Structures are given as structure tokens and as C-alpha cells.
């Protein structure tokens, strides 16, 4: 087990990601943030909080569950869905999708399909905390990256959050 980001480093990374978002979206007038259930929400909660602090503006923030849009429903154990909550229209908006780890790109593919069912956004961007480079199965690239790491398939990237797991950290684990 190897620590990729410890508590202090993670904090700095989150600050940077929030500032990068504000740099591109300024007051978030026509931009919305959407976190991907279940584990992307911990990250998006933090980012939204930081962006609010920087801009002082109200941010339109939604949560998206992609369970029903997965492409592997029949091949693995069934996933229990979480709630989708997008209390605003995304029509014509700049959408920032947020997830914790980008691996094969399949989750993001599902998320984009799910998103389109809610309307036609002007633009969709992707923010991830950890980019597992060279492991993509679909042509998906993030716009904002917290940390890039080279991994092999048998390894697992764990993002732990204080609210859920007791500590803020990102670790790389070898599967035994």
C-alpha cells in the first residue's frame, strides 16, 4: 500500500482544482456542477464548498446516479442505485462532471448518456481527483486532474474521506 496524497497534499490539490474551476467559469453564472454517485459526491461536496468560498456566489449543484446507464448490467452482480438529484435545468449550461477516480472511462460514458436525458448542455467538462493514466478503454480525457498515476489492472486506487472513512487520503493498493 502506497500513499499517493496525504491529508495536507489532498487539501492543497482540492484548493487548486477549485481555483482552476473558478478561473474558467468565473462567477458560475451559466455553469453547474454535477457529482457522480456514489463516491464522486464526497469530492464534489468539497469542491462546491471551496468554489462557493472563492466566488461568494450560489452554485447550482446536482448529483447524478449512473446505475441504470451502465453497460454491464447482465455480466456482474447487480448494483444498488443511489439517488439522482438535479433540481435545475442543464439546457444550454456548462456542466462540470465530478468523479473521484478516472480509470477505464466507462463510468463517464454512462454519465454522459445519463446527463443527455436531462437536456442538452452547452459544454461538458470532467474533473477527477485521480487519473489512472494508460488504463482507458474508451476515449475519455479529463479537463481538470488532481493527481496522475500509472497503475496496472490488479491495483486499486482508494480515495478515503474524513466524512466516510475517517481520514482524507489517496492510497494505491495492490490486490492480493
Amino acid at each position: 500500500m502506497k500513499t499517493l496524497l496525504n491529508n495536507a497534499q489532498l487539501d492543497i490539490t482540492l484548493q487548486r482544482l477549485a481555483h482552476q474551476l473558478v478561473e474558467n467559469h468565473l462567477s458560475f453564472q451559466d455553469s453547474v456542477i454535477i457529482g457522480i454517485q456514489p463516491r464522486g459526491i464526497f469530492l464534489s461536496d468539497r469542491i462546491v464548498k471551496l468554489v462557493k468560498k472563492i466566488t461568494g456566489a450560489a452554485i447550482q449543484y446536482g448529483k447524478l446516479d449512473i446505475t441504470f446507464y451502465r453497460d454491464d448490467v447482465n455480466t456482474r452482480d447487480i448494483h444498488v442505485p443511489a439517488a439522482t438529484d438535479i433540481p435545475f435545468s442543464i439546457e444550454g449550461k456548462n456542466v462540470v462532471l465530478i468523479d473521484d477516480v478516472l480509470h477505464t472511462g466507462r463510468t463517464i460514458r454512462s454519465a454522459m448518456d445519463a446527463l443527455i436525458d436531462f437536456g442538452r448542455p452547452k459544454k461538458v467538462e470532467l474533473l477527477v481527483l485521480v487519473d489512472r493514466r494508460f488504463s482507458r478503454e474508451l476515449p475519455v480525457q479529463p479537463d481538470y486532474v488532481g493527481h496522475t498515476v500509472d497503475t496496472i489492472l490488479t491495483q486499486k486506487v482508494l480515495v478515503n474521506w474524513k466524512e466516510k472513512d475517517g481520514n482524507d487520503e489517496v492510497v494505491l493498493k495492490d490486490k492480493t
Partner: protein
Amino acid sequence: MSLSVKHLLGIKELTLQDIEQIFQTADNFKQVLQRPIKKVPTLRDTTVANIFFENSTRTRLSFELAEKRLGADVVNFSASGSSVSKGETLIDTVNNILAMKVDMVVMRHAASGAPWFLANHIDASIINAGDGTNEHPTQALLDAYSMREKLGSLKGKRVTIIGDIMHSRVALSNIFCLAKLGAEVTVSGPPTLIPKHISSLGVRVEYNVKKALEWCHVANVLRIQLERQHKPLFSTLREYALYYGVNKQMLDSIKKDIIIMHPGPINRGVELNSDVADSKQSIILDQVENGVAIRMAVIYLLSGKREME
């Protein structure tokens, strides 16, 4: 997290955890059904056959909508106008349908136990949409789900089921389901329509409908099923309506507001009067609405089992 069963044959086989999981998944589908695009592509690689050997409006439409809103392909089959009238057996009929690469079967049949028989002979997942006088599991699930929506947890809640208990698969499935969820059940109706040993299922029997209504939080009024009565069990429909029908006057004489349910189709003026069926106390149309979400949940949760076997 899949269900503990491969088929949904009856509520009897489900665990409490299965029921809770179906409800939780239905919550999510209910939310999908309120979106502008009421459809998800979850089962786009799945084909479902709806095989109905008995008449149905609500159940078949509800299943078909549920399947379509999950993105599945749907084929419909009804016994009238098919080769069943030429003498084809149940297994032959179903195997022929499965040979056309169908993954899941939703079946209604007049013979009690038909889905269990079929489950022993074919590989596809089977959902029982009502078998004879035995079970109608999705109806019981949507009934309990609708009650839960109004009352919260059903633990300790009191439900009265009124009417033709003897011939009703809805009653039996409801009794199993409510027992698992911790609710208390009373059955009420004419003695000729209440099976002798029904109390062995842990339900109370109260022949006086008014007393049964005074006792409960929810009254589930069942249809009088004349098509299943091969000998007369009460003298006339008017007499039934007089002694066992639920009307506004009766409900007004009870001090509390109870929730009125009916699985449909209603014999208006027989078991349920229009002034009750169309009142604020009635959640009959909520039941129908929830039916689609519950069936989507069941189909979704069973579809994961397919390639794991």
C-alpha cells in the same frame, strides 16, 4: 447485491431484505418516471416475453411499460388467438418463445402453481403476474409500497383485507408480504368467501366489515371474482353490497380517516361505492402509478442473475 431468488414466483419465497431492496430500487425508478425522459437504457440487451393465459389490463400494461422504460424489447402473447387453442402444452409454448432468444418471462396463468412448474423446466427468469388463486407478488409489493408511502414503516400498522379472500391471489400475496413487513392483518367478508383455516397464516378474521374498518389504518378492498365462483357463495350482488360493500356513509361513521385501496378492476357499487373509490381517502391511482416503478425494480433486480449462473 442481488435478490436471494432467481425468479419472482411468490412473496412466500422472498426475504424481508429482498422486499426492502425492491422498495429502495423502486424509489429510484419512481424518480426516473418523473423526468421529462421517462426511460433508461439499462436493459437494452434484454428481451422480455409477457405471456398472459388470463385476461388483464392493468397488470399487462404496467409490466409492458416497465419493460419499455427499462429499454428492454418486449413481446406480448395472449392465449386467446394463439396455438394454445390448438392444444399446445405450456412447456412447448414457452420453449418456443424462448427459442426466439427471450431472456425473461412474465406469466399469468389460471392454474395455481403454473410458474413454479415452469421454473423447474426452463432457464429464463420467471416473474409471476398472477397464478390462479395462489399468488400475485408484484401486486402485493406495490400495495405495501403504496401503504408505506402514506404511513411510513408498516411495522405494527393494521391492514384489513375485505372481500373474496377465498379466490384472491392478491389477498394471499398481501398477507405474506404484510407479515414479513411486520403489519397486522384482518380479513373480512362473508363466511363463505373466507377459507376456514386462514387464521393459520397469522391473520384475524372479522365477519363484520364495519368493525374490521374501525380496527384498521388501511383497508384493501378486493374485487368479487364471479368468474372463479363455480357455485353461488352469496345470494345476490345487491345483498353483498348491502352487507359487505364499503360506502361513504360507513366510512363517515368511523371516527378516523382510513386509507382505501383496491387492486382493480372495481365493481362499482358492489364491493366499493363510487363515493369512496373517488374520494381523497382512496389511493387507488397511486397504486397503479407505483405499479410501474415496482415492476421496473423487480425486472432490474432479476436481470443481474442471468449470466452469473
